[in-house]
């Protein structure tokens, strides 16, 4: 698998990250074994999780292909513009020499100015360059919150414009060559200032340093090709006027074409570097990488759905009005004789119940906050067997112990009482009832 991204893949990655739900529980040990960097890992993830021709793939393909078509159109346009511009400057009807200053000024000087502007903007107004680039940026990328392909796209656009610059210069050169080969062109120079030909020669020499001074007109040629409107064309030496074209073309090559080639190489290099190591520092990419590399830790239950069915609803216990006196049964924790006696007296007073040790019926104290156990139900059944079917069994449900106001117990929680009533209904005993303890308010 390739470790470097293509612009289409990176765009597809962005689309998948932001426009589609990414499954974040995607730990894959193979992915970790085969990759050494975050970029490589995410690249492999993209290739592995591609599921046929998805919308993201199609979308990114359309974006990249559209960019290619636009780039081609831009090249053709630039080539034609270059040729047309050169043609405009190389019009020669035989009545006036072609002024090399116009040709150089626009086709070389203009381009150099543009390059200086670019360098200055890169240093001082980077933000504005980005704004300009965003005009050319695919709409899809502009709508994504943190696209990883953004920098790659910026360099792609940059190098596309440099290639357009190359096409422009090629257009200029081809047209110039065509004109030179098929027309009789005569170049000259002019200046209102009393500039002598030596000064122009020095300028020409300086400009031709990059190509070691070759293809430059000699001082004589320069002197002979001076445009003097008062003397007309009669004084002009044809060899001298023709000697300028190699120099002009070399100027376009070295000051127009080569910088664009260098910038294009630089842009392509930056683009490739960006594609080899894209910026995956956005939180969404970090999150995906975290999940790809995180060994899974699961918590799961062995529950089957049937285990979670709520238990059937039980009946509640019928109300019981005891007939006659009852014998008090206290819990083990409450068998201090003095305490028990005082509590018995309070029950008689508060609940108007008659308590007697000789009575057949029973008044059993239960702590309602304790859940009713099977064991408790068994005890009640055994008690029923021992006292016979006619005697009453009344359960007095009490809350937490509370001696602070001499009330012995708090009132039971209504929810606890309900639980007890429900559970006691299982005993199926018509002489069994439950009563809540009501302490003095």
């Amino acid at each position, binding site marked *: 698998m390739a470790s470097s991204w293509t612009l289409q893949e990176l765009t597809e990655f962005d689309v998948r990250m932001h426009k589609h739900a990414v499954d974040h529980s995607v730990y894959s*040990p193979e992915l970790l074994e085969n990759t050494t960097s975050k970029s490589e890992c995410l690249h492999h993830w993209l290739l592995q999780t591609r599921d046929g021709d998805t919308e993201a793939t199609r979308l990114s393909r359309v974006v990249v292909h559209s960019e290619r078509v636009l780039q081609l159109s831009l090249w053709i346009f630039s080539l034609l513009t270059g040729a047309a511009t050169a043609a405009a400057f190389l019009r020669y009807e035989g009545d006036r020499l072609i002024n090399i200053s116009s040709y150089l000024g626009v086709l070389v000087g203009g381009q150099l100015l543009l390059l200086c502007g670019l360098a200055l903007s890169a240093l001082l107004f980077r*933000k504005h360059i*980005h704004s300009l680039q965003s005009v050319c940026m695919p709409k899809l990328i502009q709508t*994504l*919150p*943190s*696209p990883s392909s*953004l*920098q790659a796209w*910026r360099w792609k656009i940059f190098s596309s414009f440099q290639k357009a610059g190359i096409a422009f210069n090629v257009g200029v050169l081809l047209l110039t060559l065509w004109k030179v080969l098929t027309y009789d062109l005569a170049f000259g120079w002019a200046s209102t200032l009393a500039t002598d030909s030596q000064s122009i020669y020095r300028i020409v020499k300086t400009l031709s340093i990059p190509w070691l001074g070759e293809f430059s007109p000699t001082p004589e040629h320069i002197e002979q090709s001076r445009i003097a409107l008062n003397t007309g064309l009669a004084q002009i030496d044809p060899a001298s006027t023709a000697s300028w074209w190699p120099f002009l073309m070399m100027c376009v090559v070295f000051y127009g074409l080569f910088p664009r080639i260098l910038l294009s190489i630089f842009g392509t290099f930056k683009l490739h570097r960006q594609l080899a190591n894209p*910026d995956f*520092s*956005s*939180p*969404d990419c*970090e*999150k995906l990488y*975290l*999940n790809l590399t*995180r*060994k*899974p*830790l*699961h*918590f*799961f*239950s*062995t*529950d089957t759905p049937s*285990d*979670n069915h*709520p*238990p059937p609803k039980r009946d509640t216990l019928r109300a019981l009005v005891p007939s006659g006196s009852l014998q008090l049964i206290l*819990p*083990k*924790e409450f068998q201090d004789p003095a305490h028990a006696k005082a509590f018995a007296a309070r029950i008689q007073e508060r609940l108007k119940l008659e308590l007697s040790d000789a009575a057949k019926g029973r008044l059993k104290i239960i*702590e309602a*906050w*304790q*859940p*009713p*156990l*099977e*064991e408790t*139900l*068994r005890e009640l059944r055994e008690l029923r067997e021992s006292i016979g079917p006619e005697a009453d069994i009344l359960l007095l449900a009490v809350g*937490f*112990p509370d001696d602070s106001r001499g009330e012995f117990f708090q009132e039971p929680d209504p*929810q606890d009482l309900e*639980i007890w009533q429900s*559970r006691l209904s299982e005993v199926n005993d018509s002489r069994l009832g439950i009563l809540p303890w009501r302490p003095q308010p």
Partner: protein
Amino acid sequence: MTPLKYAVLGHPNEGKSSVVSTLTESEKVRISPTPGQTTRCKSYVISIESEEVLEIIDTPGFQNPAATLQWFESWQGDESEMVDAFIKAHQQDKSFHHDLEIMIPLQERAGVLYVADASRPLRESDRQEMELLRYIGLPRMALLNCKRENRNFLPEWEAALKRRFNLVREFNAHRASFSERLELFDAMAHLVPEQAAALQDIRKRLQLEWDLRIEESVLGVESLLIQCLRHQVKIPFKEDKPSNPQLEKCGEKYRADLRKFEEKARRQWRQLFHHESLPGSTEGEQGLLSEELFAEKVWELLGLSRSQLAIAGAITGSAAGAAVDIAAGGITFGIFTAGGALLGGLGSWIGGPKLGAKRLPLPGKRTLARENIVVGPARDPQLMFILLDRSLLYLTRLMNWAHGQRNHEHFLADITPDSGLVRSWSERQRKEFAAWIKIHSHPGHPEAEKASRKFRRQVNTWLHSPTTPE
């Protein structure tokens, strides 16, 4: 490798299922205030890389402690066959169904975690259960799970438990934090020395998982903030200029989108911490996090305070004024710097946090094509401070919410801090976040990675901090 087994036993309705739920981060554990709802043993497993490492078994409560203890006390045979014999002897007795279920993990020699609600009095049936477990002789730890505030009965429980259990620990299943859960794993490692290494491994893995979850949450916070920071709403209009209802509609769409982003982030955090059933917001409840993002109260209490905003405004104003002073070659004697600071400070003071909610929607503007009302990207840093505040408060609450706590209606309701968290930040921290906002306003800033690293480190440290208020 067979997983380590621990059975959670106890009296009915003592909070066994809550303990299991909290320990295994499971929302599937059925928790009911009605006793006897757990009728069968249910296993909850922790697996690392598809390997089951720990099994926590939820069991029904003891229904016949006295009779069961009596049977064990009267057992005459080999002690190793005691549990099997008990199961065999009571297989046909329906009233022992729950007790037989309890015996299944004991038969498999599982470690015992005995859960007791120490906020109620100790009773004879409790002593019988403890005695019974002592008889069976498996490694056992008691967990004191106080369901109420009452701690009067705690000494009595501790005394009784210490006599019969290898270890006694307090563990409130409704409030246990992550570190308390880890402490419990540490204690379990002491319980069975031969399992100590395996339990330490599990503990380490849990700690790592927790750290990674926090890391992912921090990334989620940053992702939410960036999404809200750069969000734009465009609504086309045909007339010469947009009407007020159109502007209002655009603003409302912008606010609704931001609320949606926040809710989506909260949902992801809930999934991350296995709290899927917790609410994103609680309707009808009064709480700062239940309030919608643009509520007046939220803008009043969260984000930067009025004075902090005034200072920030003064700094921005003075910077703008200083530029004018410099441009004038210093002949203005710093008048513009002072004026800028004064205007900026006053403007922020008057327009302060209370009016923040009203300031949105941001002023509508036309695009170059003169056909769209555009709201966003957010130009008010206070919105980011508020979003960060809300995210941190929500995450802190979520991280500290025990899975055994099922009163979900209280999840967000009772968060009523006097102010948000960013107000307590140092000047440096606030400046760093302000710089983060500026850098991330547009994608592709060269300083973005550095600013993000700093931001993530700060939020991560903050979420890891043991002093993080709940």
